[in-house]
């Protein structure tokens, strides 16, 4: 049972750099940034005035009017990305038993736009004017609830909430759930729609966001000496994970294997990484060990790489600790947040997709905006341009406030 192989048979993404997986991958490889001046609200009172917004998003192009009114933006984005992933998997046409189809979707925050709107209504007009849809629209598990309704997925279903590691955990626990026999296939991923007064203002207050407002497209600058914070972004990314035997029997197009995951906690500080980045290092080592591989097998790491002062040198140190310096210097490490910005709860799923596509297509996406690496960041970050490479085995890191660390190990099939 626990030796089941789990494979990727569908992918979907709806982000600042594209409205399909293909568009997102194309932008990531080309280094096309999705970061612009904020349009969803007036950015003038905020120190950070830039973000990754889904461009020209009109929900009515995807969802009927009633569903649009009854869903927070984070749920809408999830439904759109999940439809693409599920459609690509071909499961709908293969007689999938709905009770064996699960949904596990993470969001760092949930329906914060709904929370703010109804809170304002309650203050201005009284608590008896709070919408009866307020609770079911706001709660962070509603993305997976709604996706299940939309795709008739009646199996295991829950949300993961671990800040920027949320969708890393969604995927990691989905892999385990299939191994344990809870489902034959699971739609797993993450979604986030944080570009609101409180979402933006909250991260501004932490001094976590880049204020490179005059140059949005290079503001998310992981590992650069002049990096000055992450760039907030919205979007959703979903995958279909499936029992390999189930996928093989129905003749599915298998994109990659998700071999194993490592999950740890720093137990150190609410936002700062642990001394020596030991939690992140352990999660990478655990993922490799559980995949039955050795550290020499690692061909590529898609880093969490947020572009904050603390994360990037710390994650660099973690990679050296995990792989040993010689091997750490010998493999490409890149951060696709350079072009997506930080999708928070959707970041782990988006980056797992990029990691899987890197293996499948033999292309390492670049850290597109890196100009001059920080002294403490001295690995091969695939600066500026994508690179062809024969990859067999790769890791994707997701780290979240709260000290959460997830590493997902992906293999060529």
């Amino acid at each position, binding site marked *: 049972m626990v030796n089941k192989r789990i494979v990727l048979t569908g992918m979907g993404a709806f982000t600042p750099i594209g409205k399909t997986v293909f568009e997102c991958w194309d932008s990531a490889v080309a280094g096309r940034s999705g970061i612009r001046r904020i349009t969803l609200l007036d950015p003038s009172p905020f120190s950070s005035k830039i973000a990754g917004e889904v461009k020209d998003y009109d929900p009515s192009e995807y969802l009927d*009017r009633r569903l649009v*009114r009854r869903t927070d933006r984070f749920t809408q984005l999830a439904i759109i990305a999940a439809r693409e992933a599920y459609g690509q998997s071909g499961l709908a046409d293969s007689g999938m038993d709905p009770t064996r189809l699960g949904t596990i979707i993470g969001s760092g925050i949930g329906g914060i736009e709904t929370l703010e709107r109804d809170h304002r209504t309650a203050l201005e007009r009284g608590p008896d*004017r709070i919408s009866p849809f307020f609770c079911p629209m706001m709660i962070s598990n509603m993305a997976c609830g709604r996706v299940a309704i939309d795709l008739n997925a009646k199996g295991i279903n829950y949300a993961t909430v671990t800040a920027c590691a949320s969708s890393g955990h969604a995927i990691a626990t989905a892999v385990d759930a299939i191994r344990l026999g809870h489902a034959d296939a699971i739609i797993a991923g993450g979604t986030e729609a944080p570009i609101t007064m409180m979402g933006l203002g909250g991260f501004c207050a932490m001094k976590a966001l880049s204020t490179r407002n005059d140059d949005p497209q290079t503001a998310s600058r992981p590992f650069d000496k002049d990096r000055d914070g992450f760039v907030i972004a919205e979007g959703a990314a979903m995958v279909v994970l499936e029992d390999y035997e189930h996928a093989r029997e129905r003749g599915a197009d298998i994109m990659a294997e998700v071999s194993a995951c490592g999950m740890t906690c720093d137990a150190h500080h609410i936002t700062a990484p642990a001394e020596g980045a030991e939690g992140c290092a352990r999660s990478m080592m655990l993922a490799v060990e559980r995949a039955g591989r050795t550290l020499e097998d690692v061909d590529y790491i898609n880093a969490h790489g947020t572009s904050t002062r603390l994360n990037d040198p710390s994650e660099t140190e973690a990679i050296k600790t995990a792989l040993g310096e010689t091997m750490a210097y010998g493999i490409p490490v890149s951060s696709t947040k350079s072009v997506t910005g930080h999708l928070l709860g959707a970041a782990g799923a988006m980056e797992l997709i990029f990691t899987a596509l890197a293996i499948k297509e033999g292309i390492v996406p670049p850290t597109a905006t890196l100009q001059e690496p920080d002294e403490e960041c001295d690995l091969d970050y695939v600066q500026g341009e994508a690179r062809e490479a024969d990859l067999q085995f790769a890791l994707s890191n997701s780290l979240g406030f709260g000290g959460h660390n997830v590493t997902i190990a992906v293999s060529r099939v």
Partner: protein
Amino acid sequence: MSLENRVSEIIVNKLGVKPEEVKPEADFQTDLGADSLDLVELMMDFEDSFGLKITDEEASELRTVGDVIGFLEKKDLEA
């Protein structure tokens, strides 16, 4: 705009149904696809639009479009 048309417009906007579906005999739940949460919100919209309060007891009797029109006409007479 007539009372009937105002009521119809609110229902069309809230439930996303076609204007021609909003007949007096149409039941909100069985004909117009509303669930219990839709009904709460619909009553709030009627309250806001017509400037009155609908108690929970009154709301529980308002099952069809015609019920609402009759209720509002009666309220208007009382006022």
